[in-house]
């Protein structure tokens, strides 16, 4: 009987991976539940181990299982050949996702076999300042959205004097169109543990938390399993690998609040409080969790660190363009034929991602708009698809790269409805601390309704623009501060959708 791989990733499970795995096991095969390769349009993806590598079939339904020539790994309409040669995978530059999908994600021995903990091993022999210097050298910028240099943040915490410091991982991943954090936690959780442990050693912290949104039950379970395994293997906990370094890591669940992805709201939530935003200063690096110096980073920021330590900051910096160094795991989502995870160096164009990798829209209709960077990101018109993915290029176009989520819409999209939703979402998720966000967003919905209904259109468009300015200038955090971005981009690039005859709009 053969050894076969069927992902345990929740996206794969969402289209029947469990049923396929059970059916293969019933036929007597040895089934390994691996992470997903990220070719989500091919899930459930079944891989068969052969002497010529892993031969893949997909997307496999339960009805296909009986007909799969597993024993020979031979011909079948669903046969994709050696998965490593698949262009979707082969044309990526996988540094962070190099291991994801290959092994059982919670197996420490599998992880070590594939180079896992090489970064931590190196870090254990270095002074904190040398680790921070390596991360600074890599040019890594925070992957949670704001793009703040990770090395500078770590140095602030390293230099702070305190009896206790903390490492907090922001795994709230609330942005629509993003799932890379989830895939790391479900597909290579030990890498996140390794990255956080390196951070702890670098700045002198002994306690850490992973704050995971409650919408991710599989990620929560897998992280907990991986933490237990890492502790058992002495890669985490007291006296890591027999050294004097100690780092205790705990998973905390969110409770359904988008704003808890904002770092200070997350800290409040980790302290057991309402998730309201704290004014800055003080910055969390100096006064963070329980008032102590705290490193807060996104999952992908921590996940990039093991590579940087193992291979050197320069090796990482050699990828990318301008001030955007390294790679970003982009997430192709929405109305797209080949949705999934594509890790590429910065500088890849939006068109390459959406057309070459993504294969255009799922519906086959022309692309009209692409929302990049989550619900607070701009709607980019199809005409701007040649922009390279780079923080500065996007900022100059009043757009943002954010967490790398790319949501494609075809020509049927109503951009006034999308602008309205941006305001509605802000109204639902506002923490309520400041007026421009709390009240402004509700007013925004009303004004857009009037515009669409054809009521005093010009005056109301101006009112909307003023309202957006007030939100941008007067909000305490980027929830209220950036909601105008999708709204104004919709008006700017798709004015015709705000100017339909009232009768048509009423339909």
């Amino acid at each position, binding site marked *: 009987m053969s050894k076969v791989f069927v992902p345990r990733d929740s996206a794969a499970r*969402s289209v029947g991976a469990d049923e396929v795995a059970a059916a293969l096991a019933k036929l007597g095969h040895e089934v390994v539940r691996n992470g997903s390769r990220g070719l989500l349009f091919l899930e459930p993806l079944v891989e068969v181990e052969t002497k010529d590598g892993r031969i893949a079939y997909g997307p496999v339904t339960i009805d296909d299982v009986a007909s799969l020539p597993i024993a020979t790994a031979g011909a079948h309409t669903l046969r994709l050949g050696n998965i490593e040669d698949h262009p979707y995978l082969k044309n990526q530059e996988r540094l962070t996702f190099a291991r994801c999908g290959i092994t059982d994600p919670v197996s420490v021995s599998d992880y070590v076999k594939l180079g896992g903990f090489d970064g931590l091993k190196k870090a254990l022999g270095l002074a904190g300042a040398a680790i921070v210097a390596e991360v600074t050298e890599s040019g890594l910028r925070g992957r949670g959205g704001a793009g703040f240099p990770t090395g500078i943040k770590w140095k602030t915490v390293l230099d702070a004097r305190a009896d206790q410091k903390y490492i907090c991982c922001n795994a709230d991943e*609330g942005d629509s169109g993003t799932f890379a954090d989830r895939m790391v936690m479900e597909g290579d959780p030990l890498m996140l543990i390794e990255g956080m442990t390196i951070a702890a050693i670098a700045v002198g912290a002994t306690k850490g938390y992973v704050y995971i949104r409650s919408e991710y039950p599989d990620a929560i379970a897998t992280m907990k399993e991986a933490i237990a395994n890492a502790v058992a293997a002495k890669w985490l906990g007291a006296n890591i690998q027999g050294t004097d370094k100690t780092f205790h890591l705990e998973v905390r669940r*969110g409770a359904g609040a988008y704003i808890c992805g904002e770092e200070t709201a997350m800290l409040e939530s980790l302290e057991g409080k309402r*998730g309201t935003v704290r004014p800055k200063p003080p910055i969390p690096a100096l006064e963070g969790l329980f008032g102590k110096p705290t490193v807060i980073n996104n999952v992908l920021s921590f996940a990039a660190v093991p590579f940087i330590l193992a291979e050197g900051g320069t090796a990482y910096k050699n990828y990318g363009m301008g001030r955007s160094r390294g790679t970003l795991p982009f997430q192709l989502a929405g*109305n797209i034929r080949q949705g999934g995870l594509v890790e590429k160096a910065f500088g890849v164009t939006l068109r390459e991602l959406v057309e070459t990798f993504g294969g255009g829209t799922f519906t086959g209709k022309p692309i009209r708009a692409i929302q990049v960077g989550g619900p607070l990101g701009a709607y980019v018109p199809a005409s701007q698809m040649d922009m390279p993915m780079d923080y500065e290029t996007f900022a100059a176009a009043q757009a943002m790269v954010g967490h790398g989520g790319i949501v494609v819409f075809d020509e049927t999209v109503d951009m006034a409805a999308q602008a309205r939703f941006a305001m509605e979402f802000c109204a639902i998720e506002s923490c309520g601390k400041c007026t421009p966000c709390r009240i402004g967003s509700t007013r925004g919905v009303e004004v857009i309704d009037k515009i669409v209904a054809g009521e005093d259109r010009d005056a109301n468009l101006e009112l909307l623009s003023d309202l957006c300015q007030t939100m941008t200038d007067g909000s305490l955090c980027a929830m209220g501060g950036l909601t105008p971005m999708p709204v104004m981009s919709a008006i700017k690039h798709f004015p015709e959708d705000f100017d339909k005859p009232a009768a048509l709009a009423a339909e």
Partner: protein
Amino acid sequence: MSQKTTLLDLSPREATAAREIALRYGNRPDALLEILHDLQEHLGFIPEAALPALAKALNLSRAEVHGVVTFYHDYRREPAGRHVIKVCRAEACQSMGANELVSMIERFLKVKLGQTTADGAITLEAAYCLGNCALSPAVMVDDKLVGRVDAKKFETIVAECRS
């Protein structure tokens, strides 16, 4: 079960459950969200009667505990149906017809988002991204994610919930 509890109704069962779960977390106030999650898994919702017991155990004011329970969307103040179906309303799912899917589901179940079906089988809720945006539209049935949801798939889900 469906009877409404009030502040005065200090049900010992609910207060005891709250105390036991809080103790499991060493009565640490920072673990409040975890405690509330566990309590909700145990009782199906967060009854008012549990709040004073929680406040006492964690050395918090009742207003603080109440404030947390009401801030987060996850915590329900009343029991839900036997199954909870969350339908994603966020952008990636919208691009694949989530709005139409929601309307279809509401008609099919004869309830609106936030309501429970007459037979008590299903509570329907909105979600804002389930992390399945490459396989939109997505729903979550209790803890199980489902992708590429259409009318036919949804009918199967409902049949399973009702069986």
